[in-house]
Every structure is written in structure tokens, then in C-alpha cells.
């Protein structure tokens, strides 16, 4: 198994499938039991190093580590030595001196997790670096697809919205391609990255044309904080062309599911009606996130070093 989880490309199909099988057992261990905690990582320390605001990812990693009995240290850049100008490397060496066995890092700069992996002895888990990757999100998305639809191989997955800024989309494309799913990226041309032709995915500008043949529709959040340039004329026009509402949802096959990595902009990329429909897996994704991250921490920290 791997030492770090920096990119979805670090995982082979076999690695990912093995990880999902372990996540399934973690799931089972957290339900129908008197004690919802496992002693597996007792005495290990996991540091959550967050340079960007994040609620669900940080809490999810914290819950995962605690359910495996690891000690968790939360470090957020706000109000810390980073605000006083400390570099990432110095922060990393400090954590190293404190004996962190794993560092979970969220950073606004693409490649930050990769740099960190060269500086610390413990395992590094990328929890989102800039617009680059967010591998555990891709894992929990694929795990959710597998548990709802029973397979990944041959699934048609549409990823819709701001692909340009989305690390979720990047990691998902890589992982889903590894696992044999067919991915279609749907976005206005301004929100597709340069070089997207080299990705293992098709692209399309017309959401309505893609929906009838999709098993999974993954709506990406419109990242208002990154929308300082004019990528589309108006929010209303974006919602009309690329938002998923009940009428559009009706074009999907009966078994298809609707996913969203959260946090959702209701009324923008997804209507409230769709978000709360039985097809929506938003809540399941959050629950699965904990099981998948438990499996990741177990695989990185459970064995001999």
C-alpha cells in the first residue's frame, strides 16, 4: 500500500476496491453496535492542518480518526503562527517534532500536499490543494456510487459545472477512469480548463443532451469566491443552462442518482426540490465520507512503518 494519499492517481483499481471493502466493514462496525469506536489506531496522532475554511472535510477526518481511537490535533491557519508569517515548511517541521503520524492538509496552493510529503516523516493525506486534487472526496463519491448502483465499471457519470476550479472534478475524473466508469464533463466553455482534451473524459456543453444517458449526475458547486472574473453572464443564466431542477431531473433514467460534494448553493447549480429528492445522495455522501476516511487512515497508519 501507499505511504501518502496525494492524488487519486496514486491508487490502482485494486487499491481503491480494497479500500472500499474496508470502508464497508468500517460502516458495519459503526452501526448496530454498543461501542461505536475501534481501538485500531490507539496511540497514533493525526494532525488536521487546514489553511482553508472547511467544515465537512475537517470534521469528517476528525470523526474518522477519533473512531479509530487516534489522537487528533486540529490546526487551522487562522489565529495560529501562520497568521504571524510562518512558512509551510516550518509549520511542518513543528508538527514533525510533535510526533504526528499523519498530516491531513487542506491548502489553497496546488501542490502543497506534495511538498509537505517531502518534509515530514509521517503520512500525508491531501484534503484539497488549490484547484488540483481532493482524493478522499473522489473516493467517497465512488464509494457512494458503488453502494447505490452496485458497480462502477461501465457507469456513465456526468460531472456538471465549474470544472475549471474544481479539485473534486479532477480527482473524480482520474479515479473513475481507473475504475472503469465513463465520465462526461458538462460546463460552459469558460469553465473547462485548458488541456481538458487530454483528460480521460468527454466534454459537452449541453446538459439536456447528456442527462438521458447518465447513471450519475454530479453537480459541482459554483465557487462564488473564485468568480471574480466573468466566467458566465449572470447567475440566472448559469442556473437556467447548467442548474439541475426538477424538470431536468425528469430526463434522467429511473435508477440515476444525483450527487453534490457540498456545500450546495440551492437555486444555483441545484434546486431545493432536487437536493431533497430521494435521488439525491448528498447526506449519504457525508456519512460515507467518514467510513472512507477511516479506511484511508487504517491503510496508511494501521500497519508497520
Amino acid at each position: 500500500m501507499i505511504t501518502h494519499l496525494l492524488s487519486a492517481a496514486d491508487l490502482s483499481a485494486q487499491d481503491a476496491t480494497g479500500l472500499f471493502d474496508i470502508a464497508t466493514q468500517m460502516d458495519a462496525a459503526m452501526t448496530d453496535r454498543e461501542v461505536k469506536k475501534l481501538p485500531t489506531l490507539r496511540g497514533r496522532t493525526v494532525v488536521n492542518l487546514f489553511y482553508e475554511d472547511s467544515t465537512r472535510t475537517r470534521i469528517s477526518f476528525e470523526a474518522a480518526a477519533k473512531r479509530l481511537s487516534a489522537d487528533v490535533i486540529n490546526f487551522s491557519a487562522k489565529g495560529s503562527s501562520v497568521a504571524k508569517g510562518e512558512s509551510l515548511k516550518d509549520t511542518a517541521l513543528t508538527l514533525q517534532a510533535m510526533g504526528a503520524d499523519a498530516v491531513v492538509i487542506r491548502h489553497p496552493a496546488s501542490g502543497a500536499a506534495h511538498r509537505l510529503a517531502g518534509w515530514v516523516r509521517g503520512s500525508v493525506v491531501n484534503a484539497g490543494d488549490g484547484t488540483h486534487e481532493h482524493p478522499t472526496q473522489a473516493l467517497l463519491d465512488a464509494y457512494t456510487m458503488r453502494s447505490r448502483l452496485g458497480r462502477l465499471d461501465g457507469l456513465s457519470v456526468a460531472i456538471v459545472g465549474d470544472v475549471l476550479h474544481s479539485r473534486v472534478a479532477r480527482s473524480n475524473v482520474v479515479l473513475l477512469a481507473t475504475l472503469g466508469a465513463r465520465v462526461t464533463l458538462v460546463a460552459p466553455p469558460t469553465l473547462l480548463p485548458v488541456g481538458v482534451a487530454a483528460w480521460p473524459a468527454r466534454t459537452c456543453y449541453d446538459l439536456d443532451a447528456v442527462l438521458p444517458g447518465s447513471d450519475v449526475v454530479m453537480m459541482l458547486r459554483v465557487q462564488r469566491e473564485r468568480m471574480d472574473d466573468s466566467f458566465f453572464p449572470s447567475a440566472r443564466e448559469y442556473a437556467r443552462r447548467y442548474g439541475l431542477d426538477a424538470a431536468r431531473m425528469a430526463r434522467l433514467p429511473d435508477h440515476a442518482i444525483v450527487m453534490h460534494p457540498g456545500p450546495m448553493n440551492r437555486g444555483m447549480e441545484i434546486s431545493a426540490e432536487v437536493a431533497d429528492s430521494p435521488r439525491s445522495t448528498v447526506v449519504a455522501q457525508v456519512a460515507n465520507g467518514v467510513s472512507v476516511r477511516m479506511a484511508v487512515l487504517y491503510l496508511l497508519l494501521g500497519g508497520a512503518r
Partner: protein
Amino acid sequence: MAHPDAAPAKIILTAAEMARMVDRIAHQILEKTQGARDTILLGIPTRGVPLAARLAGRIRTFEDTEVPTGTLDVTLYRDDLRLRGGTRAVGPTTVPTGGVDGRRVVLVDDVLYSGRTVRAALDALSDLGRPRLVQLAVLVDRGHRELPIRPDYVGKNIPTSAAESVRVLLAETDGVDEVRLADRP
């Protein structure tokens, strides 16, 4: 799971002998639990699981009583995880309907050696609930305990040296019923 035998293995128990031991343990369980009342059998993977099923089958034959069986995976509770290279796959844990609370639980494994697997199983069990009583059934007790653990039902005591390895093979998992003694590769 086939394993490459470095040294030639000696067969120390045959299928017939193993069948007699399972029969005897089934009788002993019936005796010690008042006809297997409120009793469940939990097999410890890998080979404890088919053994538990065989015991339940024999008990059904002898007394026409249904003893619920389940599986108790102890991987996440092992104390030697970090001593081993790489992480192990985690198997399923299935508990019969009704859970373990207030019941007599008989843990079933193939070989009792250091006792560390049983220690992990006891921890795993206490996270599932509070059994009224926990007992241990093993096919082979080979000694060399590292913890204060003692089986309640033993197929056969086989004194070994730590340099030897004892392999229980079962038709369900290995295609043949026999117990082999070999030098550790």
C-alpha cells in the same frame, strides 16, 4: 490458501480424527450449556468460521437444537498490526439476530497459540455488547501462551516447539480435512 511448505509436513490429525473431535466438542458444549440454551457460536476468521458451522451442524444432529452462528473479525483489534508489514484486509463481522447481550457466546478458532487472537476477540466482543458468559473452543491447542487465556473445549493438545508450525486444513477453505505439523519456513 495454499502455503509453500519449506520442509515436508507431517500429518498429525486425519479427517476421521478431526470429525470425532468436532463431535466431542459439540457434545461438551451441549453438556456445559444445558443443551445450548441461549448459546451462540462465533467463528474467528478464517478457519474458525467453518468450524463454528460444523459444530452447529453436529449439535443440530445430536439434539435437534438450532444454535445461531456468526463471524467475529478481529483484525481491527489486533495488537500486532504495527509489527506486520502492510495492513491486513478487514473481514465482515456478523452477529446472529438478537445480538450477544445476555447470551452465552462460544468463540471458535482452529489453533490456540499465543492467545493474542483470543484477546483481540474478547475486546471486539465487548464492543458488540455484554454476553452473559464467554467460552472458547479450539480444535488444536499447541501451547506457548503469552497471555492468561485457557480454552474451555479442546479438540487435541499438541505440544509443539515454537520452531514448528501447525496448519489446520478444512474442506471448506482448503479442499481437505487434515492437520499438519511442519518446521517453520
